[in-house]
């Protein structure tokens, strides 16, 4: 997205003023409205589709497979495909590595079936279009797809070390997967202001950006800066990190409950 110099300076001044004026009038803590659809892929154990009001869209599928966790302890496999980008594109790889780290926060015990076997989850993310950094959208997608994931109900004994048998499942009863995936927030920084969920035009003039991760009521790693453009990026007051964290701490639970009430 290329903006004219006049547009950029208008946006910058508006975002830098006190209080900041966002181009669509949002509060610093306000997200773009989103639409969420879940459970639309019958052949997946869980699925979600998130569409932000700017047209950014991401689809997530969760498929489970029974594995022997004594030989394969990597129980979460995530693959991210961003339409129009190559699989080895920087953006795709950095998203994949971010979520690989983040999903380690999920309690893997919940996936364990028996002493020997566990569910392995394959999380496939397809970003159909994105106007700015898609990590936040992806985390919402993963959150709601895992929340909508149902797995076959185990009927065989937990202790299977003695018997050389695969776990047995109920014919049709399903159990809801109870995991709490982390959420990722992107924040934009303009001068001394910080605001959540920057739109494409806001990213274009931001002096810097932050990625803040959150789960279960607390901030977790990674927290890091993120250059949102390659023309305006510069250093910022470290106090803004505190402010950003406060912002996320205050509002993240609202997001989590909004995503859960589906």
């Amino acid at each position: 997205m290329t903006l004219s110099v006049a547009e950029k300076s208008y946006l910058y001044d508006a975002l830098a003023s006190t209080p900041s004026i966002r181009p669509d009038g949002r509060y610093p803590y306000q997200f773009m409205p989103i639409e969420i659809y879940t459970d639309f892929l019958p052949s997946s154990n869980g699925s979600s589709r998130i569409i932000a009001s700017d047209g950014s869209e991401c689809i997530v599928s969760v498929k489970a497979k029974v594995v022997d966790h004594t030989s394969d302890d990597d129980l979460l496999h995530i693959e991210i495909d961003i339409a129009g980008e190559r699989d080895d594109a920087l953006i795709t790889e950095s998203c994949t590595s971010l979520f690989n780290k983040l999903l380690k926060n999920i309690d893997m015990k919940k996936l364990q079936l028996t002493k020997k076997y566990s569910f392995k989850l394959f999380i496939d993310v397809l970003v159909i279009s994105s106007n700015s950094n898609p990590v936040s959208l992806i985390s919402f997608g993963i959150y709601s797809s895992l929340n909508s994931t149902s797995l076959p109900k185990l009927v065989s004994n937990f202790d299977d070390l003695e018997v050389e048998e695969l776990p047995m499942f109920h014919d049709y009863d399903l159990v809801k997967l109870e995991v709490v995936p982390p959420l990722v927030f992107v924040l934009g920084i303009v001068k001394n202001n910080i605001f959540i969920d920057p739109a494409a035009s806001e990213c274009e003039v931001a002096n810097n950006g932050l990625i803040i991760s959150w789960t279960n009521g607390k901030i977790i790693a990674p927290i890091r800066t993120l250059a949102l453009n390659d023309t305006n990026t510069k250093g910022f007051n470290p106090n803004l990190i505190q402010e950003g964290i406060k912002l996320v701490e205050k509002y993240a639970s609202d997001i989590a409950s909004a995503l859960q009430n589906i």
Partner: protein
Amino acid sequence: MSEVISVVARNGAFQKNMITESFESDNSDNSDNEDYNMSGSDDDEEKPATRQIASDSDIMTPGELITDDPVWMRGHGTYFLENKTYSSVAGTVSKVNKLLSVIPLKSRYAPETGDHVVGRIAEVSNKRWKVDIGGKQHAILMLGSVNLPGGILRRKSESDELQMRSFLKEGDLLNAEVQSLFQDGAASLHTRSLKYGKLRNGMFVEVPNSLIVRSKNHTHNLPGNITVVLGVNGYIWLRMTSKMDLARDMPPGGSTQTSGGSMGPTGAVSLNPNSNISITRLEEESSWKIYSDENDPNITNAIKQTISRYANIIKALAFCEIGITQERIVIRYEASMAYNDIGSLIQRDNMENIGQEVLNAEKMRGSAA
């Protein structure tokens, strides 16, 4: 609903506005599979063998026979074989004299001579700028089709060619008129009037071009000291109203006084026929300022908030696929004052309300056609 995020959620189903057309076989008695015989052509009865022509507003879809009357000239959105004219797009029939065309429901912007458009410079090349106007191809703005600093009568020189980027560079926004069309349908633009040129002091909004109707005037002054340029191509510019914008709206004989010094949107001082500015002043004022990248330092936060409010109203109208006109923007602006919080205007149900209220208001006033 949380004010942090508004979520519309649905479980199971996927589509919004799903048009469901389930098909049930209607020839259950035909279970003998020899019933279908390829050699028999059974679709003859489906072709209306009439000389009648579809009326305006009838929906046509690709491949559909519009008429078998040979008197019509075939325009856009049609093709023909012998006497029969068929539709090549999905849309409505339009008949202008003997010209028959089908207007697609939606397509990329197709420029016409005289259109007032907003565009963004995509490329600076040899003696011309390529301008993104949301069309099928970039429009061309020739170096010779712009006013250059130093006045209209100034000759273009080689040094102008070398410093084209100092006038307009990639990313710059401008409004312009479609001067002519090339053979392949690409537009040639010009900005040789003070109402056209580089845009400043505001914000850009994009809507589908089908929502903007061609009219006499595409620049409107709105309440709250805001001016909107509704590009026919669906590109919209919202800016703080300038002196020149005010002057334009003044009735002849009005008592405007251009209290010198302040710039018009194109950097030149107001050009009201009744004001006391002569054409020679124009030449003086048509200086480097018209290509300045600087915004007016007097844009207050209140103005910026108003611009954001208008932007959200325009987006809400576009969301409801309602044609965007000055009247509708103003009606909604006034009504939107009920929402103190501009940010709430982007929520889906509020957008839907905005659209519904506009339509209701028009029905009440009987202005809806």
